[in-house]
């Protein structure tokens, strides 16, 4: 478990991707595909269970220019939030 960035409350989510149960590299690939379906400035929410996503999603946001807003940990999955550039 790395130091994680907590997402703020009350985010206005435009679209949600359920990537629960998927393992590397599928959560990130589905995220890349799904973000094409929202507009610039809108927020994509991703449900994931792969611990690797904690590194992959923020790292990809850095390179692709999207804003990584953080995560929220639920009992058996994690919500990740990305704002499209």
């Amino acid at each position, binding site marked *: 478990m790395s130091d994680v960035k907590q997402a703020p409350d009350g985010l206005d989510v435009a679209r949600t991707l359920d990537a*629960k149960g998927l*393992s590397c*590299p599928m959560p*990130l690939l589905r995220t890349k595909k799904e973000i094409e379906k929202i507009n610039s400035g809108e927020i994509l929410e991703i449900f994931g269970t792969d611990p690797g996503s904690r590194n992959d999603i923020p*790292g*990809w946001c850095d*390179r692709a220019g999207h804003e990584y807003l953080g995560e929220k940990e639920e009992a058996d*999955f994690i919500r990740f939030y990305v704002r499209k550039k």
Partner: protein
Amino acid sequence: MSEEGILGRKIKGLFKVLCQTEWNATVAGMIVALLSILIMAWWRPWGAVGAIRNWGDWIMYGIASLAGSEAGILELFDEAPRSILISSGSVIGIGFIAGAFISASFGNDFAIRIPPVLEMCKGMVAGVLMGVGAAFAGGCNVGGMYNAIGNLAANGFAMWLGLVAGVILGLKYIYWEMEHISWGSGGAKTFNFPFGLKVVLGIIALVALVYGAYCYSGSDDDYVASLSGILVISAGLGYTMQRGRWCMVQGFREPHMTGDCTLAKSVALSIAIVAIGAAVLKYSVPMRADGEAVLDPINYVRGTFGWGAVVGGFIFGFGAMLAGGCGSGTLWRVGEGQIKLWLVVPFFAISNSMLVAWFNDNDIEADGVLGKFVYMPETFLGYGGTLFLIVFAMVIWYVIVDWNEDTGKMIIEM
């Protein structure tokens, strides 16, 4: 804050760094290289497929015992394989998974993760392909590539080439699958456990590991006694790889998927360090007290330098893309509870066990059908030239992936 309070905070900080924070990829790669050299100095290079094949031999022996060993390939499995607790390959696998499990437990990464149905099917197919590829290449990405180049064997470079091509095709397949296959997306379920329980399970695994090492070291048989170090060092490898999420197939894949070259650079550095370590151990062939070589130069030099390692690497790379983990990456993900990778292992085991048994029965590798045995220091290169070649190749790889991270020239778009 009282001095005791500060001490407690420092101890918690150390636990966090050692057991919870994700380790930097470069540091993880260097620790993997160090442990790879230590296990060579202790006895033998490590690999993932040695374990998986031993387990596959047991599955095949079980089938042969039930169905009769007269028919076809089952004829080759009429004798019991070496015990899973005595085969050095299998002990490496057990130690590796235990180390990964301990890391995942303390780091709160462990959970039983059941994937969607399509992913389970992919895991089974991936396992078969990885078993076949590893048989042709003379090892998986570890024994056939990482430790093969590290052990100055030319077949490692041939598999490296095949892996690059296989991973690219695998990535293209996954893009295609995302567009065209919607079947089997349901059925995912995750069973998480309270963190306290995970810590208790981690401590139990750690105690079992230490107890196992003591049991081995107390044996009168030198071979069995040596397994103590094998178990502990391979647990260190599993621990390090899980903690750093150090995955070789990711090093091959990311430059083409996102452009990220962190793991590719770390793998290149790690291979160069192992090669230097192996050259030191093999050059003067240091002897143990009983006159046996510490590390026989022929270790991990396989007769697959030719089409065997290239085609094997290609099939293995494609399979590893479907699996989401290479040989070692599969085993550490088994330790963190990923059921898809649990499914990869038995299919990998059976396909590799059958093909290797058939190859051995027909002297395929010995007769040079797959390629040549080339120990690079015995060619015109010598030790100096071999080390130069390996370090040079890794530097070129490093520079190319680094250049690609900024330019994106090698990224395959969706």
